[in-house]
């Protein structure tokens, strides 16, 4: 089953795209369902697909090297949870939320795949509730943009915005890590 144009428009990246164009995007996306704990994206994989989440909650997490009592170990650290509000998840998340939850009517993950054909997934994404989602491939999206260039501007603007935000956060992280590094060396 394909999503509706309204469902596509609820996703931030496509909010400025006219309804008739959203219908074209909806026509190449198939709604799928997954259970809690199912993995949607895996960190380090390359991919050319964007995941559009229409209903449910997902958790974004990263593998981190940390020092534990038994030595250095890789541990998966949750970064953020994303939850749809329109419609809300069909059930409560599998665990109590201990990380920050961002709510949006619906949302897209892996938007950089709409730009790069071999984008590397920078984090794991797995379902915390039953999730309804669709997959938009770079090839399908490129074909739609080729026929309707006006879609590209607004979508790529949103993708660029999140890229700039990520860059600013990464720059802050580098600055914090540099400070921590010097701080640790001088103690």
């Amino acid at each position, binding site marked *: 089953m394909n999503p509706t144009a309204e469902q596509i428009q609820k996703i931030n990246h496509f909010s400025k795209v006219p309804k008739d164009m959203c219908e074209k995007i909806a026509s190449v996306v198939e709604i799928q369902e997954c259970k809690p704990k199912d993995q949607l994206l895996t960190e380090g994989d390359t991919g050319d697909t964007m995941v559009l989440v229409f209903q449910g909650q997902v958790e974004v997490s*990263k593998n*981190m090297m*940390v*020092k534990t009592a038994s030595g250095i170990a890789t541990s998966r*650290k949750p*970064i953020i949870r994303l939850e749809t509000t329109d419609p809300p998840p069909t059930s409560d998340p599998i665990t109590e939320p201990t990380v*920050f939850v961002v709510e949006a009517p619906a949302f897209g993950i892996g938007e950089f795949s709409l730009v790069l054909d071999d984008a590397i997934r920078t984090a794991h994404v797995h379902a915390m509730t039953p999730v309804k989602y669709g997959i938009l491939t770079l090839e399908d999206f490129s074909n739609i943009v080729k026929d309707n260039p006006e879609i590209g501007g607004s979508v790529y603007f949103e993708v660029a915005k999140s890229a700039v935000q990520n860059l600013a*956060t*990464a*720059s*802050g*992280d*580098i*600055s*914090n*890590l540099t*400070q*921590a590094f010097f*701080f*640790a060396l*001088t*103690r």
Partner: protein
Amino acid sequence: MNDNASPDQFQDPDVSTTELDEVIHANKELYDKLNKLPEIEALEAIAIEEEEDLDRGDKPHPFLVLVEKLKYFYSKNELIRYASWSILLILISTTALTMIEYDMFKESVSGQVGKTFIFGGDEANWLDTFFHTFWWSIVTFTTVGYGDVSPVTHLGKFLTIIIMLLNFGVVTLLGGAVASVLVAKRLTGDDTLDESKFNGHLVIAGWNSYVPSILKLIDANVDATDTVILVNVTDRDIIQRATTGYERLDIHHIPENFTHESVLRKAFLEKAGTFMIIPDNSGLLPHEEPDEDKTVLTCLTAKSISESCNVIAHVLDTETVSHLERANANEIVIPDDHVPHLLAKHVTDPGVPQFFDELILQEEKDKGLQEVKIPKSLNKQSHNKISAFYKFKYNWLLVGYAIRKAGFSLDDQMGESGSPLIRSMIKEQLEGAGVNLTSDEHVVVEINPPDDYKVDEKHSALVLR
């Protein structure tokens, strides 16, 4: 530093004396005008008020002090505790026996005392009877038992039996308490200090020939703390000879190894204002060098007792400095650091080394270079105003400021930048590795700043008195 003018300008021989006179006159006029400013006059009143407030604020009511002392003695001293209960028991038994055997004790006191002084005049009254019964109680309690007076009624005898049996327990406990106090004193070498006396005091760990000079200078400064605890294993006689004759200082000595945590706790390090660690010559022969590792170890121990403890470490070997920095010492003093400067100044600026000698070595009471608190009302004022205040009010020369810089905090420094995940990971990992995320407050100096330099509450004045 004010670097606007080159020193050569001041040595220009072409400046005419008229010109100089004009400048001096203009400055004098300006000083006179400033002196008459209502702000300066008002400040004088405020400064006096602040001093009075401080004096008032420091002194609690003497009755409260006495109650606190009694409470402290009761809780800390076994002997006092048992003695109080014995006295209470004696008073209760005396009162009970006075009531029950009133007739017998009254008759006895009249018969024995005869016509000598009694409270009741011609006839013994209740006070005489009470005193007589009290005498009986003490005689019984101390197991002396003269037998000059004894209860006659069955009830009186019954009560006396109870009192005598209780007396066994009390006398035994009291005897035990006296013995335990004596043993404890012997074991600790009379070094248990009264904790209530110590707050903001100075603790000096180690002993060398500098200590008497340090104490002399601290004694001369009335604003400095007057309580000092010396911790070292130097011979008591040497310490006693070197620590007598000070006007203000109350000096205590703990003759134990200062690297031990328990010993530093005895010196109430967590409440100390400053902890000074110096090269320790205790028990060394003249050719032996003090062990500087002890200084580092003591600094680490002090910081583990109280992170906020202000540690000043004196070292002879510059290699120890980096270890002390890692141990988080607040100030590190290297003795010969200034010697090359002084030697060079003898060549380049004769008079400057002599000036330092005069300033530092010849410091007298209320003379020399000192750090003083700036009145609160002068907060946010510019340097020239504060300088004028000290000049006119006390005739002191303001040479600069000591500024308490807040310690570096990695948490504050990171703020909200970057991702929360990375921030929390940095904190978690550094804390896990035992790295403290904050560094201590430390003091920096600002010498002769520009006139418009603003002063805040973190500043205190360095004045030449």
